[in-house]
């Protein structure tokens, strides 16, 4: 069979169009297809439901270091977060895993401090955690979709899929993610271990999940439960009657690094008035 130049170009052109079309078509199919669909699976009827979960933290209600410690311990024990210590009892910064922890004002709200601001606020420890952003950079960079957005606004983490590349840690502007450099079970006290929640394994990244597993069984997050009265609120910010919405509407609240456009869902009250 002989072919002239014109015929060859025609065939080459048509086949490249077909090939390009096929690659586009295959790229639009969803990466993940659920193996079980309703009605074979259903949410727990007692679960708490929201359009957009959010949290308000009123730092003035934390009177002592003990109050803060209670909150962080409650979270870390509920989720079997390891506690790596140096031989002298200080936190081993190399292996430290944190879901909720404290930072000074300057590192919580960088750029907001000034030379004359009250020493009290400057030195006050702030409770910080994952902000469950509207537009989370960690989700955008995750190559395996191990971290992803739930429809209720929670930035969730699927430990089974995490390959430990730590892109999310580099992307998160809040330092909310920790990497398991070694087997975390070494640093979990078997006496206080939560038998109803898994641990993690070496080589995955972990962070706060807004207690997704507790919400699904009708319980509010462990930190909010352990906080002093009126210090932490949790609720649906899209619901005009929710506590968090009322606080955010009625007074000045600040969020961490809003200028980055991540849309954090953890709001801070600095003043000392009573609310809600």
């Amino acid at each position, binding site marked *: 069979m002989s072919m002239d130049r014109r015929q060859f170009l025609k065939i080459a052109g048509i086949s490249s169009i077909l090939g390009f079309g096929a690659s586009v078509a295959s790229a639009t199919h969803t990466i993940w297809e*659920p*193996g079980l669909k309703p009605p074979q699976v259903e*949410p727990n009827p007692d679960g708490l439901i929201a359009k957009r979960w959010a949290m308000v933290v009123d730092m003035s209600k934390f009177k002592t270091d003990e109050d803060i410690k209670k909150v962080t311990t409650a979270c870390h024990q509920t989720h079997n977060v390891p506690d790596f210590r140096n031989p002298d009892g200080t936190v081993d910064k190399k292996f430290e895993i944190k879901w909720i922890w404290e930072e000074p004002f300057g590192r919580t709200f960088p750029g907001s401090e000034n030379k004359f601001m009250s020493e009290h606020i400057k030195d006050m420890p702030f409770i910080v955690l994952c902000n469950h952003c509207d537009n989370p950079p960690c989700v955008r960079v995750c190559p395996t979709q191990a971290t*992803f957005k739930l429809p209720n606004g929670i930035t969730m983490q*699927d430990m*089974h899929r995490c390959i430990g590349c730590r892109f999310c840690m580099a992307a998160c502007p809040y330092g909310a993610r920790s990497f398991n450099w070694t087997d975390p079970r070494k640093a979990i006290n078997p006496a206080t271990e939560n038998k109803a929640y898994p641990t993690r394994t070496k080589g995955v990244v972990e962070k706060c999940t807004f207690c997704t597993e507790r919400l699904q*069984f009708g319980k509010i997050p462990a930190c909010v439960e352990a906080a002093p009265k009126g210090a932490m609120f949790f609720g649906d910010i899209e619901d005009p009657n929710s506590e968090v919405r009322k606080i955010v509407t009625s007074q000045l609240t600040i969020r961490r690094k809003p200028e980055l456009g991540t849309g954090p869902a953890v709001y801070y009250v600095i003043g000392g008035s009573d609310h809600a």
Partner: protein
Amino acid sequence: MKLYDGGKILIGLMVFVGIATFPFYYNIGKVDTKPELKTDTPAIQAWEKQYGKKECVESKEYMRSEHMQLLNNWRDSVVRDMNRQYVSMTSGKKFNMSLQNGCLNCHSNKKQFCDQCHNYMAVKPYCFDCHIQPMEKEENKS
């Protein structure tokens, strides 16, 4: 035909055959013991009392061949779709989709249940690297 160095060759051959077949006669009577699963934990006995029979989420045959697939689907459904309840195709009963708080509640004897087949088949699922296995009595250790 003459075999040069016949003695050395024959000895060499015998040594070779001996080494090559070593795994077979070394394991005679060892690995052909069938796995024995125990389904007599207190939770299963209580279930039997209440419902009159032993039953799992799905039929025994389905669970035997498909439990890995089912667990994978459960995991995706819980973590990514926020579902928590599984409706059984066999009995219509609802089950909490959870390895640690579901399966292992009844099968609290991992060493005499999960491990039996997994060891026999030489598979090493990494479920229990994270999911905490129930405490078992010393006497259950194999």
